[in-house]
């Protein structure tokens, strides 16, 4: 193309380099741009420190004098000043954040922080004087300087934080452990190591200009190691009965407390780890169930150390950077078969239950059996696990491809157990004393026997296998359990939580996970719920931000908005038995005294959601309020679904299997929503939360609240 233009005697146009304007045209351009910048400034209310018009006039004068070079320089500065002035309000948050960070840096004693704060103060003054370009440049400079200090600053903060936790142990040792000045004492070498480490590692760092931040971690670890050696040596000393041993015991008690404090952050981090593999889940379970106390201080110290080691192992196992390719897709797919895989692993590891080593041995033994479903599963699982634990970047991609085969192998490994469980459920109505023989049907069982058969079945079937049974089989088991008039009702004043029928009922509920299709349906509706409320995002944002300040009437408006959006999204009727959905009043106990404990309750009798006027949590916490309203309104939803199940067959609103979801889930709600079906917290708190109606409310409340809160912050 350019060759053709050259041949024609024309030069091609190049982007970004317009040909120089003729002098008059250049003057027009300068004057136009100056006028435009001035207009923009005027419209935005920027007077540039009272110099806006003066600056424009100077440009015009220089242009009039045909000094285009100076005029252009002034123009570019003028335009930049206006542009920076326009964006300055949006940079005020950056200024505040940078100032806050610099102030924190100052707290660590970093001398550069003073300098940064001065620069930021100058930036602020420059902006107030209308010198926006200078203000922006100063802010950018301070941010850059701060960013350079951040890694060092973090090291110092970590150091100060960790040393703050080690200091009580040191103080305790100084107060109790002899040997510092006694050359003949057995602990002298350990004290020397502590002293040497302390000399190189001040307890808190107050000046990072004189201390190399990168060395702090190494120094701290040296000190912590020396302190550990000293305390362990002292703890191991066999002292004679008397004052020395008493002092050692006192030290041990304080050391346990200080050691727990030292590891408190580690424990808190470990406690909230989200396990992503079977191994991580195992580690987390081990960590959470480790014994807390000890009969002696020595045992207690040992247990705290062991717990810390486990926490570190767990945290190391989950530590990683950015998500790897296919990581999310893998976890999404794995979560759908994790229950099956876990059950297959547990089944393969039987009969060992005592330790991980026993389990691994049992699995190894199964793997050696020739060509069995168990050995095939172990082989598949071993391949899968080795890839997952390889730490190669493509491990999730490879594992994702292996999931279908793993699922098949796990299902095959569980098939015998599952078949046995299905057979057991299929014979609930048979007389156990006269089992079926060839060509002769079993005798029908009495209602007592059916109930006992159901109890025996829940005791026989492994919980993991029970969970895997189809929903209708679990319902059959529950029906059989109630063949004799239902499990005994639970009496709050006469707890009988260990009654076999109630234990069996809780076991069936525990196996009744929410119907997957219902969960998916609710997930979709949750988005509709959020979309509905986000139509008036400003109002919801204001409610969130001002929640504790709102009047009761204003809060009720928000309650109703949330409830209505929830009903609309899920497609069920509002609670309005008494003409209004919310009954806000002082609640009372059975003896007439004011109920200060209950915060909210759905009342199916009056079809209202009761809110206790005494609830300071609901009136002060917006997040918890959404959770509570959705939780209680979910009970309303369940009640409306059950009402639809109970409608006459000829009623067109009757809920049937043709509308599934929510039909299957509604059957579970109905089975739970009976006088015999309740599980109270007093009977068994875990059982209460896992029963279908509460499982649903406790799951959907926080998930719905989280979805809305994220949308409000987006």
């Amino acid at each position: 193309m350019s060759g053709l233009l050259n041949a024609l005697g024309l030069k091609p146009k190049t982007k970004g380099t317009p040909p120089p304007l003729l002098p008059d045209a250049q003057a027009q351009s300068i004057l136009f741009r100056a006028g435009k910048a001035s207009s923009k400034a005027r419209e935005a209310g920027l007077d540039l420190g009272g110099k806006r018009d003066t600056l424009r006039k100077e440009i015009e004068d220089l242009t009039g004098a045909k000094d285009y070079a100076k005029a252009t320089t002034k123009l570019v500065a003028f335009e930049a000043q206006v542009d920076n002035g326009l964006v300055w309000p949006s940079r005020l948050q950056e200024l505040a954040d940078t100032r806050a960070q610099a102030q924190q840096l100052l707290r660590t004693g970093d001398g550069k922080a003073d300098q940064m704060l001065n620069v930021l103060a100058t930036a602020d003054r420059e902006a107030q004087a209308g010198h926006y370009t200078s203000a922006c440049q100063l802010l950018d400079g301070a941010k850059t300087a701060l960013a350079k200090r951040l890694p060092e600053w973090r090291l110092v903060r970590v150091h100060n934080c960790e040393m703050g936790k080690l200091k009580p142990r040191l103080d305790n040792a100084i107060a109790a452990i002899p040997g510092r000045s006694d050359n003949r004492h057995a602990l002298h070498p350990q004290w020397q190591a502590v002293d040497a480490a302390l000399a190189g590692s001040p307890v808190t760092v107050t000046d990072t200009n004189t201390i190399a931040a990168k060395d702090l971690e190494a120094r701290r670890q040296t000190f912590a190691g020396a302190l550990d050696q000293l305390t362990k040596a002292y703890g191991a000393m066999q002292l004679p009965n008397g004052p020395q041993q008493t002092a050692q015991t006192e030290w041990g008690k304080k050391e346990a407390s200080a050691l727990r404090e030292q590891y408190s952050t580690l424990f808190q981090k470990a406690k909230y780890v989200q396990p992503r593999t079977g191994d991580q889940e195992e580690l987390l379970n081990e960590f959470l169930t480790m014994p807390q106390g000890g009969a002696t201080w020595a045992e207690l110290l040992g247990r705290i150390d062991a717990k810390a080691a486990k926490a570190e192992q767990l945290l190391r196992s989950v530590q990683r950077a950015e998500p790897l390719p296919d990581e999310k897709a893998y976890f999404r797919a794995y979560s759908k078969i994790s229950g099956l895989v876990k059950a297959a692993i547990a089944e393969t590891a039987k009969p060992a239950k005592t330790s991980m080593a026993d389990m691994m041995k049992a699995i190894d033994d199964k793997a050696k059996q020739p060509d069995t479903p168990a050995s095939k599963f172990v082989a598949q699982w071993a391949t899968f696990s080795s890839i997952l634990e390889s730490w190669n970047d493509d491990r999730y991609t490879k594992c994702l491809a292996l999931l279908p085969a793993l699922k098949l192998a796990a299902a095959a490994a569980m098939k015998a157990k599952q078949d046995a469980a299905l057979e057991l459920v299929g014979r609930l109505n048979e007389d156990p004393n006269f089992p079926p023989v060839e060509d002769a049907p079993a005798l029908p069982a009495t209602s007592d026997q059916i109930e006992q058969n159901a109890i025996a079945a829940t005791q026989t079937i492994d919980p993991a296998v029970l969970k895997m049974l189809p929903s209708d089989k679990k319902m059959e088991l529950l029906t059989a359990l109630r063949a004799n008039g239902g499990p005994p009702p639970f009496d709050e004043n006469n707890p009988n939580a260990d009654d076999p029928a109630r234990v069996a009922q809780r076991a069936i509920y525990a196996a009744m996970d929410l119907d997957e299709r219902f969960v998916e349906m609710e997930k979709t509706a949750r988005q509709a719920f959020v979309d509905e409320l986000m139509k008036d995002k400003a109002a919801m944002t204001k409610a969130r931000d001002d929640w504790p300040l709102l009047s009761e009437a204003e809060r009720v408006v928000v309650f109703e908005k949330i409830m209505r959006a929830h009903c609309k999204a899920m497609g069920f009727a509002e609670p309005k038995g008494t003409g209004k959905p919310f009954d806000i009043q002082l609640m009372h106990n059975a003896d007439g005294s004011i109920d200060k404990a209950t915060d909210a309750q759905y009342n199916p009798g009056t079809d209202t959601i009761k809110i206790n006027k005494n609830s300071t949590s609901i009136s002060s916490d917006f997040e918890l309020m959404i959770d509570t309203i959705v939780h209680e309104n979910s009970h309303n939803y369940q009640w409306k679904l059950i009402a639809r199940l109970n409608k006459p067959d000829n009623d067109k609103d009757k809920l049937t299997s043709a509308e599934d979801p929510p039909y299957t889930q509604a059957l579970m709600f109905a089975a739970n929503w009976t006088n015999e079906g309740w599980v109270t917290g007093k009977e068994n708190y875990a059982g209460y939360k896992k029963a279908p109606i509460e499982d649903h409310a406790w799951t959907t409340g926080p998930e719905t609240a989280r979805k809305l809160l994220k949308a409000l912050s987006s």
Partner: protein
Amino acid sequence: MSDAAPPAAIFDVYEIDDDDASETLIGEADYSADGMLTLTGGQPERAEYLRDVFTRVNAKPMISELVGPPKGAGQFAVSTKSVARGEAEFLDALQGYLMKYYGLRLG
């Protein structure tokens, strides 16, 4: 030079995906001895969101959690358990609260 107490803990802040429970490291926060969270680093594009959340939880004098019905209350009732700022269990309550309502893990 200030002799302010050192921060009680430094946490990485992970955001948990609602769909697949995968986590993404999005920030770093100081948890001070008086129970306040301060954003100290992380992804710039998530800083505003985290600052917003921290401001909100820092303003709470206590962290409340829904629990089951109190003794004697009817079915479907809920009560709450609150932990005031400064109490020993406050950090634990705060971690649970951030996970539950914001999908954020301090780890």
